[in-house]
């Protein structure tokens, strides 16, 4: 499943980049994050409760940031396992200056393996869109929170 989109942050590139690399921000904004443990450089293990409304799966995830070009681009890979199946998301992120703000664009693939793929296909695309949207909204909130 292809996912792409963009989000505008009211901050400069450095702030947005730092935010996206921040363990604390991730721990706060990754959907249903119950713990985020560093397992290496730019690599974490986390338990995420991902879903919409009452439909949530608890995923044991590894999260890695690779191919970093500071202030420009990076790749985020999330691999998770849950009872309803496994997920793998690989997203390429990039930042661009916009008038007094920064536009983050992402482009990637999210693959769902297992029962969820077979029974939930109708909902997967809009659900991932919603979940990603919430993530950025939360991150944006972190930004304004930290500037206060």
């Amino acid at each position: 499943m292809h996912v792409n989109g963009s989000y505008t942050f009211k901050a400069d590139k450095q702030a947005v980049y730092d935010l996206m690399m921040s363990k604390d921000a991730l721990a706060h904004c990754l959907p249903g994050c119950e713990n985020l443990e560093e397992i290496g450089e730019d690599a974490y293990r986390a338990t995420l409760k991902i879903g919409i409304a009452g439909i949530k799966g608890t995923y044991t995830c590894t999260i890695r940031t690779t191919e970093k070009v500071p202030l420009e681009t990076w790749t985020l890979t999330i691999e998770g396992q849950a009872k309803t199946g496994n997920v793998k998301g690989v997203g390429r992120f990039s930042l661009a200056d916009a008038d007094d703000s920064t536009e983050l664009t992402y482009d990637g693939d999210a693959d769902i393996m297992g029962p969820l793929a077979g029974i939930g296909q109708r909902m997967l695309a809009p659900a991932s869109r919603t979940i990603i949207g919430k993530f950025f909204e939360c991150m944006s909130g972190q930004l304004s929170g930290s500037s206060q």
Partner: protein
Amino acid sequence: MVLPKLVGSPIKRREDPRLVEGTSTYVDDIKLHGTLYCGIVRSVYAHARIKSIDTEAARQHPGVFAVVTGEDLKAGGIGMLPVAHRFGEGLKVPPRYPLAVGEVHFAGEAVAAVVATDRYVARDAVDLVQVEYEPLPAVVDLDAAYAGAPYVHEEFGTNIAFEWKLFNESGASIGEADVKLSQRIENQRLAPVPMETRGVVADYDKGKKSLTLWTSTQIPHLLRTFLSLLIGMPEHHVRVVAPEVGGGFGQKLNVYAEEGIASALSIQLGRPIKWIESRAESMASSIHGRGQTDYVDVGATKDGKITHLHVHILADLGAYHQLLTPVIPTLTGLMLTGPYTIPNLQCTVHGLFTNKVPTDAYRGAGRPEATYLIERVCDLVADATGVDPVEVRRRNFIGSDKFPYTTAAGLAYDSGNYPLALDKALSHIKYDEFRAEQAAARKNGKYLGIGFSTYVEVCGMGPSAAMPAGFGWESSTVRVDPTGKVTVTTGASPHGQGQETTFAQIAADELGVGVDDVIINHGDTAGSPYGVGTFGSRGTAVGGAAMMLAIQKVQEKAKRIAAHMLEASVDDITFENGKFGVKGAPDRAKSLGEIAWIAYTADTIPASIEPGLEATSFFEPPNFTYPFGTHIAFVEVDGDTGEVTLKRYVAVDDCGRVINPMIVDGQVHGGLAQGIAQALFEEVIYDDQGQLVTGSLMDYALPTARGLVSFETDHTTTPSPVNPLGVKGVGEAGTIGSTPAIVNAVVDALKPFGVTHIDMPMRGEKLWRIMNK
């Protein structure tokens, strides 16, 4: 009293009272004391290496009795699942264990099994088994699988499991034909979806060291043989029972992992084990059907005579061979010329492994693909030559005086009269008026279409020598009990076809008793001679014929006993109006019951006659049968949405002699619904990672009452010479004939948009795009 002639009458089905009253027994209705429930852990990946399986949490779960993996079963002596073994050299056969060992090759493949106190706890425990995988690249698309790496089974270095060729060509080459055309034709994957999913109850008797397996199957006897080999238990210690079976459609013509797993677990735990497949499991792990991409080149004359047919079939086998997997696309190759005299035929089949559920026989099994292809070709030739599609078919028909007829593929068609069925179908419609109505409607933006399909199928499977794994015969025992009642056992194992009725009609007529004096038993290996099963429209053509031979033996013996009773010569004994008498002395005639009593009391019969009145026969058919017919579909395509509405459907079928016209029509109706649904909407879809995205009936559409019409059925009767009943079989006719009729009708409707071919299914969006490009 003159007994009514039952054969040919639409008598009500004798199996129905228990079914409409809800008192019948399907597998899940069997409840043995102490039963434990089995749940299966299935692969979430289409292709992956199993790194580890952690069963501890599941084992610790309250109510869980056992958790086993592929390695456990293998160590316990459980072997590999069987495949059709007479396919020929060069067939690549990957090993397949009931629970995967080392690697998984499709999403849904069984990886581990749990056993628990009830089905809810078993389901809980399935979630507690942790499997760690190393994902490997999945092969999904057929053209990509043919092109090369990645490979489903790395060890073969190719995805091509086999190559199969037909070549019969002489004279001018296709390049010299007046008209040449090429078409890529897809025949999408389908799920059989019997309303009852599969299910198993395995019960091991420690004292007798024997196993009874109740399973929803079409082939209890073959299953018993293969199961004994799979689990290493002597065959005579295994009993297989097919209780009431809620539809098969080929999906239950197989030997499945769970039959072995439940058996192994019952032996291990000494308790009855029940496993009932969920619908999601059924969609993701029981066999699928169809799945071909066909590249077709056609040569024809200007006036629509097809001279050359060259076909390259890419057949989607899925990840493994099930019982008959590689055979199915070769049936397509053999039936490519349909009811037509096409002199030059070339066909190459490449059977391809993909990381998907294995394909195998689904209602029609290879023949719907052939019929779809050639009937599409007829319309393509009509388009290219300007000859009317009906006329193209007429010009290419094998003449009714040419039978038996050997086709370019080498098959000997038994009997047929194709123009007769076509004419009869045309007599139901007003073709010219429709064309005028269609032209007028088009001017108003209304798109009406008519589609024809004049098919022939190969049925009555079949002579053993021509069958992929032999086993082309069928058996039956006919016993007249001392009170004159008749107990028939048949090796065929019907599952909705109504043979408890049709066989009783035949037996009652032939033995001079009432239909209620006959009972037809089937589906229990302990209670019948070894048999084969019900599939390939063979139940009556082969199973009924076997019963007929046994009846004839009983009749002969009854005559000998009657001769003794009547103090006459056997040669003078007649059998009329249900009684055995002496020529010229009808008042002295004896009923079957009177004879049976003497046969069993046996104190008055001479030593030259064995006691009892029973006979067993095995019937080996000398040839297949070839039913045929003409189907005509009327559709309307919504110009705004592309949605197709079926307006009318006419089916004229010839299945040889008809035993029960009501049942024959019922078989046709059901087949039509399945064939129509393939044309319009049924489709198994995998994503590019090999995940099944049509994994439930929320996404895999089955036909409902609302989307169909009442069908107009009619028949011609051309008896088959290859069996003593003259029957041909009708179980698959509707499915085979209808798919191309619908597609041809939709393409016909969209002629104004310049299309000549549309791949199935005819989804609204697809047609909308054609109309709005």
